[in-house]
Structures are given as structure tokens and as C-alpha cells.
């Protein structure tokens, strides 16, 4: 099953990357740098999805205190961190030529930064409590942190509308994206979800093995 998922992830990624890099025409005003959009946005959506899994598993852990739920939460938080890195580092590469600065404290950037810090906090807390031989306490604090991380997701998503930030928001706009660009985006979201599922499986099995 995992090999099928792996194969699907590899083929889908190759196909969608080829489509967006070679098949789509460059955007008229931004040119080549606009391609970052096809990595940045799918990575953000994947981060939302993995944070949701982590939060659901953390709530179950808080209720039932079963380590199996904690393994799922920890694996999902690790995958979230990887995709949060893509979001946080690909954004500034686009922002510098378009906005003229790498970073600005726009509402969406700030709320994304909060999630990024919470993810670092989660991973650090787990590592620290593991080294103190108090893994159950680490799992408890981690579960609370992952719930806070998910609470920030609607803030990231609606921040542009809520606080009128400068971050572009083209998905809901009927004139925001041409059909071929939208297809490219959807293919990339699908590929990133498949990659995230494979990575989640790997981290989950490692977690299970470490605690076997």
C-alpha cells in the first residue's frame, strides 16, 4: 500500500512539476518568479491538513492518553514543520522582486510566522522532555501546543480579509487565476498531499519503532 502511495507521489509530482515548469506560459507581469506560487500555496494547504491531523490526534491523546495517538500527532507535526519551512522560505524569494522586501509584518506573514514558531516549540519541547526521560509530559505539552497551532490556521487563512493585509489572495477571485494556472495549482496540491502522506507514514513508523 505504501509503495503504491510512493509511486503515485513520484509520478504525480513529476507530472505536475513538468506541467507547471514547462507546460504553463510565464505570467505576464511577474514572469518566472511567479512559479513560486505553485510551491508556496500547496505547501500552505498541506501544512493546514497535517496540522489538522496532528490536532485531532492530540485531542484524542488528551482524552484517552494512548501513546498510539501521540505517535500520529508527532509524525504529523514533523511533516507540518517541513511544509511550514517551504512556506516560510519560498515566500520571501517571491516577495523580494515583487514587494521589494524579503519580509514585512503583514497579518498573513505574521500569523504564518506564529505557526512556524509553534512548530519549532513543539519539536523542541518533545526533544527536551525525551532527553529528560519525561516523554509523557512532553506529549502532554506537545498536544496542547499542536491545538494552539491549529487554532492559528483560520487566522492565517482569513487574515487577508480580516485585517486587509497586502498578501495576495487570488483563489476566491473569479478573475484571479486562469484555468490552466488553476489546474497546475490543483495538481501541485494533490502531489504535495501525496508526498506528505508518504512522509507521514515514514515518521509514524519511526515513532512506533522507537517506542516499541
Amino acid at each position, binding site marked *: 500500500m*505504501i509503495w503504491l502511495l*510512493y509511486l503515485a507521489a*513520484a509520478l504525480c509530482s513529476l507530472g505536475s512539476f513538468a506541467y507547471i515548469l514547462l507546460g504553463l506560459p510565464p505570467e505576464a507581469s511577474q514572469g518566472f518568479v511567479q512559479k513560486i506560487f505553485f510551491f508556496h500555496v500547496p505547501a500552505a494547504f498541506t501544512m493546514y491538513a497535517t496540522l489538522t491531523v496532528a490536532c485531532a490526534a492530540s485531542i484524542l491523546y488528551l482524552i484517552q492518553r494512548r501513546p498510539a495517538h501521540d505517535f500520529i500527532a508527532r509524525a504529523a507535526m514533523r511533516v507540518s514543520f517541513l511544509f511550514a519551512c517551504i512556506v516560510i522560505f519560498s515566500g520571501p524569494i517571491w516577495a523580494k522582486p515583487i514587494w521589494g522586501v524579503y519580509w514585512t509584518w503583514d497579518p498573513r506573514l505574521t500569523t504564518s510566522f506564529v505557526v512556524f514558531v509553534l512548530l519549532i516549540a513543539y519539536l523542541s519541547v518533545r526533544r527536551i522532555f525525551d532527553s529528560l526521560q519525561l516523554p509523557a509530559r512532553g506529549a502532554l505539552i506537545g498536544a496542547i501546543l499542536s491545538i494552539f497551532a491549529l487554532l492559528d490556521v483560520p487566522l492565517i487563512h482569513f487574515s487577508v480579509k480580516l485585517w486587509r493585509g497586502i498578501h495576495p489572495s487570488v483563489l476566491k477571485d473569479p478573475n484571479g487565476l486562469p484555468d490552466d494556472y488553476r489546474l497546475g495549482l490543483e495538481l501541485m496540491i494533490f502531489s504535495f498531499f501525496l508526498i506528505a502522506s*508518504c512522509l507521514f507514514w*515514514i515518521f509514524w513508523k519511526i515513532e512506533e519503532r522507537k517506542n516499541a
Partner: protein
Amino acid sequence: MPETYGFFVAGYLSLLTLFFAAMGYAIWQLKAKK
């Protein structure tokens, strides 16, 4: 710009291949040591 673009695509494909090779190796290891 086209040269930069070609360089970017080639670099990206290499990284992607490396990434999938590493992921495949990890899955294989996890499956093998059950």
C-alpha cells in the same frame, strides 16, 4: 533568463530525484526491519 530557467529546472529535477530516492530507501528500510 532562459538559461537560468533551464538551470533551475535541471536543479529541481535532480533534487526531486534525490528526495524520492531517499524516501524510497527509508520506506524500504522500515519495511525490511519489521
